[in-house]
């Protein structure tokens, strides 16, 4: 990474007529003594606590899948499905989406689920959207599939990962 030359930053401030151009100002924040000496160790300890190998057990399907990962995937899917159901209206005994865009907004507002956790869960489990649906014995439904795809792609974008990795079939 190369920084912008300070004279360019200053010139920009001058052109904006700002008094900030008169000199460099610190932000004034400080940290406890030796904070940055101990931070890497704290992070390493947290990583050690969360090693996924601690959770891995053989899966029923023969593939090794961490149980918590599968559960998290199921929870994520149920949450998404549940949010969509909120927007459903009874129509001659059948359910139909009233507003896809608004449903997606509802999904994005569902902040109690950590998007990174869901992303990791789906990715680590090697499960596709189809497998998630199959696992939950939910009949194929384009609206659900579309919503789930959109959601996972959004999470991928958030962490700058390839959306296809988690939305395309593995096999």
């Amino acid at each position, binding site marked *: 990474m190369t*920084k912008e030359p300070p004279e360019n930053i200053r010139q920009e401030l001058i052109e904006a007529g700002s008094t*900030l151009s008169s000199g460099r100002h610190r*932000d*004034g924040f*400080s940290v406890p003594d030796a904070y*940055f000496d101990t931070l890497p160790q*704290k992070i390493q300890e*947290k990583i050690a606590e*969360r090693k996924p190998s601690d959770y891995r057990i053989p899966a029923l399907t023969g593939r090794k899948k961490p149980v918590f990962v599968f559960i998290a995937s199921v929870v994520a899917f149920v949450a998404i499905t549940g949010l969509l159901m909120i927007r459903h209206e009874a129509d001659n005994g059948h359910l139909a989406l009233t507003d896809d865009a608004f449903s997606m907004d509802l999904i994005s507002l569902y902040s109690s689920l950590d998007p990174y956790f869901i992303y990791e869960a789906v990715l680590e489990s090697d499960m596709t959207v189809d497998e998630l649906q199959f696992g939950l014995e939910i009949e194929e439904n384009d609206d659900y599939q579309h919503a789930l795809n959109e959601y996972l792609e959004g999470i991928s974008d958030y962490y700058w*990962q390839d959306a296809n990795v988690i939305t395309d079939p593995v096999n």
Partner: protein
Amino acid sequence: MTNYSDEELLDMYSNGDNPDYAFNLIVRKYQQALYWHIRRLVVVHDDANDIVQDVFLKAWGALGRFRRDAGLYTWLYRIATNEALTFLKRKKNRYFLPFIDVGKELAESLEADVYYEGNEIEKEIQKAILTLPDKQRAVFSLRYYDEMKYEDMAAIMGTSQGALKASYHHAVKKIEKYIGS
């Protein structure tokens, strides 16, 4: 701070026998830059401390699949920015506070913060910055304090350089107005 380049660190992480060591070097290289960036957004040290640890935990979890289309530096900054902005959003939702109240709350935190050593001018600038919307604060911080190029900022913020220049210009104007009032 490590002298290894990002590419060398990533190679060490993916090809080496000890990825934990390589990741530790990445943490040492970027911990200060990310911490200060987060701190400027959330103000309180304890919050910044929690968030920077989360950022590195999430980076650790995703680094194995990092595709190197973007630089490690901008990728880490992007996660840090997203995490800090998400924290602020949740804070607002939790207390049902309008934007201005959160700004005031953060300004009060600044006054009471034992880990704030700025002089009166620097404190006044911080208070002015706290009147800006969160994303605009991030833009101002990246440009003014981190002296970042618009090209890198665009990659981090996920928006165009033109939009960032306009946002920064407006931020400078608002800060000027606050300080001058």
